[in-house]
């Protein structure tokens, strides 16, 4: 199915050329990833070595950085990781539930205000967060939600991330309309059609939503910084930043170790959901 363009060009001299392009592509890829690989290897080096070793193979291998880093400065990284996990998990659930409900209404149900509301939803996709941040802060402060996870999580249950509604609408529109009609003939109402027919078929879009929500929430620095000032509630990015502030630049080893750990879940989700991730970027252009 793929457009094999090289198939048109002759094949004999293509051989050497192919080897060369593989070589170039791998070489350039390694160059790009070198800093990250170096950070991983440096997290197993002695701090003094970090400033003298450009090699990717630590010798000797030191795990001391991980032990010292995990303790953090004051509050340990176990707390930060736990907090980040709670926030990310709730955000993922919220987005999957609320966005799929809204998407089903937009994609499959007929109602009077559909066009207007759909337009309003689309208009919010590109809205910069900063335009709403101040009133949102005032609202959440009045609800006494500052220094809780609610400001980070509750909006997800209200389908505020409209990219995902759009993603799922696009996906649901691709499902054959006969499905709904057949189910309706059999006496199923909109709830049953949503829950038993549409939702199971929307799993790829739900997976894309889950992965992106996880990545964004896990990486998010701005929102937690605004709402969380109690160090016991810090998420991993806040923890890393405060670790950097408190130790200055004296302990790069432990810092790298914790930075590497913080990237771990991202790689995990990336590897597990690669298929959904790339198809999701391709259909809606989400930025990772």
């Amino acid at each position, binding site marked *: 199915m793929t*457009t094999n*363009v*090289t198939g*048109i060009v002759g094949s004999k001299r293509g051989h050497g050329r*192919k080897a060369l*392009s*593989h070589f*170039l*592509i791998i070489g*350039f*890829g390694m160059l*790009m990833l070198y*800093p*990250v690989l170096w950070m991983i290897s440096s997290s197993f080096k002695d701090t003094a070595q*970090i400033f003298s070793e*450009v090699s990717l193979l630590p010798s000797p291998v030191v795990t001391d950085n991980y032990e010292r880093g995990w303790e953090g400065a004051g509050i340990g990284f176990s707390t930060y990781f736990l907090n980040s996990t709670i926030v990310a998990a709730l955000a993922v659930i919220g987005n999957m539930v*609320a966005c799929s*409900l*809204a998407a089903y*209404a937009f994609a499959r*149900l007929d109602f009077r205000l*559909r066009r207007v509301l759909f337009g309003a*939803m689309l208009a919010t996709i*590109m*809205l*910069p967060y*900063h*335009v*709403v941040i*101040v*009133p949102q802060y*005032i*609202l959440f402060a009045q609800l006494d939600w500052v220094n809780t996870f609610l400001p980070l999580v509750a909006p997800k249950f*209200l*389908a505020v991330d409209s990219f995902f*509604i759009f993603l799922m609408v696009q996906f649901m529109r*691709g499902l054959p309309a006969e499905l709904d009609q057949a189910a309706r*003939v*059999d*006496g199923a*109402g909109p*709830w*049953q059609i949503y829950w*038993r*027919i549409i939702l199971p*078929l929307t799993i*790829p879009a739900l997976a894309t939503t889950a992965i992106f929500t996880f990545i964004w929430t896990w*990486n998010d620095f*701005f929102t937690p910084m605004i709402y969380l000032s109690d160090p016991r509630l810090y998420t991993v990015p806040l923890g890393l930043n405060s670790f950097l502030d408190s130790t200055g*630049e004296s302990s*790069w080893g432990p810092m790298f170790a914790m*930075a590497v750990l913080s*990237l771990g879940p991202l790689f995990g989700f*990336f590897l597990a959901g690669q298929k959904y991730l*790339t*198809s999701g*970027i*391709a259909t809606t*252009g989400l930025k*990772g």
Partner: protein
Amino acid sequence: MSLPQTSIDVSAPADARGRSESRPVRGALKAPRTGGTRSLRRRMMLDRAAPYLFLAPWLIGFFVITFGPMLVSLYLSFTDYSLLSPPEFIGFENYERMFTADPKYLESVRVTAIYVFVSVPLQLAFALLVALALNRGIKGLAIYRSIYYIPSLIGGSVAIAILWRQMFGQTGLINQVLALVGIEGQSWIGHPDTALGTLIVLNVWTFGSPMVIFLAALRQIPVYLYEAAAVDGVSAWGRLRHITLPMLTPIVLFNMILQLIGAMQAFTPAYVVSGGTGGPANSTLFYTLYLYQRGFTGLEMGYASAMAWALLLVIAAITGINFWLSKYWVHYDD
């Protein structure tokens, strides 16, 4: 995208079995017998309300968390408001101050403009070049695509910002590598002339996500175009110039708008690399970083709201200009 046909077959009978009150009769179009008129009416009302019930979370979110706050922040942008005392209406004063009495604001606009207009074109150029290189029927495309995507996955994180801070520091990785070839580097992050450059490099580095979009678009170009060109003896360069690139222009526009909007709102790397100051000498004072400083450190919520609205207007204007310009270079298929 192929639908998993089997799961349709499984879910439909399960649905019919699960319903007890009205036994489905295949092909019968009459109302369910056992229901009675009262429950039928209730059911119809529920069906009519259904769209709004499905939309309820989003509707609440839209009005309470998005649209309402938008209007409030528009109002606040015309006030002097410190959170501690009630907002005081001051007309256009905030906007005037931005452009006439706040050199730091103009500096943040300048820094952000350089960042956006240097890094986005470079990023898109890399994305396009690598996508074209990968789209030659090469083996292992999925693996290469993943490798090039990794920076986009992690590029916005605090972890990578910390890495950047070390890498481009006085004794960091870059200078170590330079020392190997006998060049003595400076602290790239500590110097006002180069600090912004390190952040531009970071954004260009994350060219993976537009690249993935380009790759998907390249697959959509019909093969017959290339076959016809091959029959006519068009060279590889000619095919690129007259088929691939014109067919890609809508996606170039799409990627460009997306990345421009994203870059204008960049925050984390500048904050972490400069320790929240935007230094040295305001050289990494991104727009959003200055907005944060004014609003959440200085508690000037009215001024911060005005800055946010100015940002929204600029984003809208740049997007509009792009669409307007697109008629001169974007190729549409009909």
